């Protein structure tokens, strides 16, 4: 897949980073404002998709099987499960219990383990949506015209 024109590439260069940062903002403020892991993850995946579309598959040197996204996805789910299981070890010894100190309501670092869940859910959603997009691109490039 070839990339788009110079104008699109330049605009993407300017915008993609900001979209990525905005996704991170939505994820880490998940316990304070509307949004959270899923919404932020979709925004991050959007910025990655934007870069791929503007520069084309050749620029990214896509291969038949992109292992990186799958591994990131699996690791983030495992991390969610590990935090949930950590509830067995600390505090009241219950699965999914919120064992970290709750902090002050409204501060960025508060609400115990909730921000951690949001971060890993965000990574997982970003990776899985990007993986769907990549597999469609790779499929299109492989199939005969």
């Amino acid at each position, binding site marked *: 897949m070839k990339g788009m024109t110079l104008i699109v590439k330049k605009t993407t260069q300017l915008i993609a980073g900001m979209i990525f940062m905005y996704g991170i903002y939505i994820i880490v403020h998940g316990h304070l404002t509307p949004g959270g892991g899923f919404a932020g993850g979709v925004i991050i995946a959007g910025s990655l998709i934007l870069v791929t579309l503007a520069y084309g598959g050749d620029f990214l040197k896509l291969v038949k099987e992109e*292992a990186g996204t*799958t*591994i990131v996805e*699996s*690791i983030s*789910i*495992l991390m969610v*499960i590990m935090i*949930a*299981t950590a*509830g*067995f070890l600390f505090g*009241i*010894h*219950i*699965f*999914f*219990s*919120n064992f970290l100190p709750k902090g002050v309501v409204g501060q960025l670092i508060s609400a115990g383990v909730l921000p951690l869940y949001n971060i890993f859910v965000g990574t997982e959603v970003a990776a899985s949506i990007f993986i769907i997009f990549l597999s469609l691109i790779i499929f299109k490039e492989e199939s005969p015209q």
Partner: protein
Amino acid sequence: MNPLLPFFVITPLAGAFLIMIIGRFVSDFNKYFTSLILLFLACISFYFLFTTGENIYVYKVGGWEPVNKVPIGIYMVMDGFTAIIVCIINLIGFLSAFYSISYIKRYTAENYFYALFCLMIAGMNGVVISGDLFNIFVFLEISVISSYALVAFGVEKNELEASFKYQVLGALASFLILIGIGLIYWKAKTLNIADIKTAFSNGYDKTYYLFVQIVILSGFGLKAAIIPFHAWLPDAHSSAPSPISAMLSGVLIKAVGIYVIIRLFFNMFIISESMSILITTLGTLSMVIGVFLAIGQWDIKRLLAYHSISQMGYVVLSVGIGMILVSRGIKPEVAALAITGGIFHLINHAAFKGLLFLNAGAIEYTIGTRDLKEMGGLAKDMPATSATSFVASMSISGIPPFNGFFSKLVIIIAAVMARFYLLAVLAVIVSIITLASFLKFQRYAFYNKSDIKRDKIKEVPFPMVFSMVILSIICLMLSLLIIPEIRETILTPAINILTDPLKYSSTIIGQ
């Protein structure tokens, strides 16, 4: 709170994603790890089967205690009935996973196979131990979505077509279930099954309630493939790889279909006579039509798939008779007998249908065809497959001393005692036709002389033989459930929780 309960969900879930990571770097990790996980789960499910008894264990996820006796957290519930189903899921799951060690070599992408397998197990365990309507839906989606992918695992034309059909009807079912849950949530203002029961016993709108029941019954009926909703089952179950067919037919339609129907209609809804007559009618239709559709098939796996519809008809019919009697409030001991028959047959069906699909897989593995006309004379070269499939065929057709005989006997006796003579006669006739169709299977596959020249056939490898032999021993052992002492420790707690209208909800709300 019993700390072992969440392990039914987390171990297979974590296993699935560990396989996706470690399986990339270490070959053979996937197959042994899956079997190990399922062996562990089978052990703890047996522990629960023998220790639960009349108790109801409740696990409040995240430690959210009820406020003013209103449950606010997610509940996991383990009672006698759940323990039986969990046991079936993990035991058949273990044997199928062990069987796959040899069988799945003919496919590529083994990592994906085992990861999806673990996800399916996690979903089914979640459906069964969840005490919360919305979590039932979430886990149901996990298990059926992984089963869509597993049905299409061969990526040939037939498999993809079957998977697509399954997805369309499955999505319709999920839609109906979600609407039903939404309607219940709207009126009852809660999603906890026990709490919904209390909310509805304080008075409700009859018409609305009936509508909800119909929507829920059609949704889960589609998942359970009761007869007007059965169109997806023969294609999906025959196209999947054989260990997956064994899981789908032996376990999935029970765990996400029949189990939920029984649980919701006995423990959540207040049983009404009209609904129970409807359920009995659907069961009878499945039983009769399923067997007539099955007898003309020449593809082994399609034949077995149609028999699943028919045998599930027995279960639904028997439980339906129990529901009619409970709703009329007469003959409680006959109602208990009918429900016992239904659940006993459900357990037996998991064992022999799982075994039959594994046999079909073994035949397909050796000679590469599923068409009965192209087989013949396999008994000499494949003694283990032949012997185990004989056990399974005799079990499903109800020949003593195999397990199918006793459960069908209990069902027929219950139907006669409840004065449903026509249903009893139909059950006997269907059993005879089942016998005919399995004699056809035995004769064409194993004993007929074959004109086709083929290379020297060998018996299938050890893991496949092991799973089949263990399942056929289980088929024989399950007959022991008819003995009163064993029945009272295993089946009776399940029956009590279903027939007693208030025990489930009051115990859970009280904790």
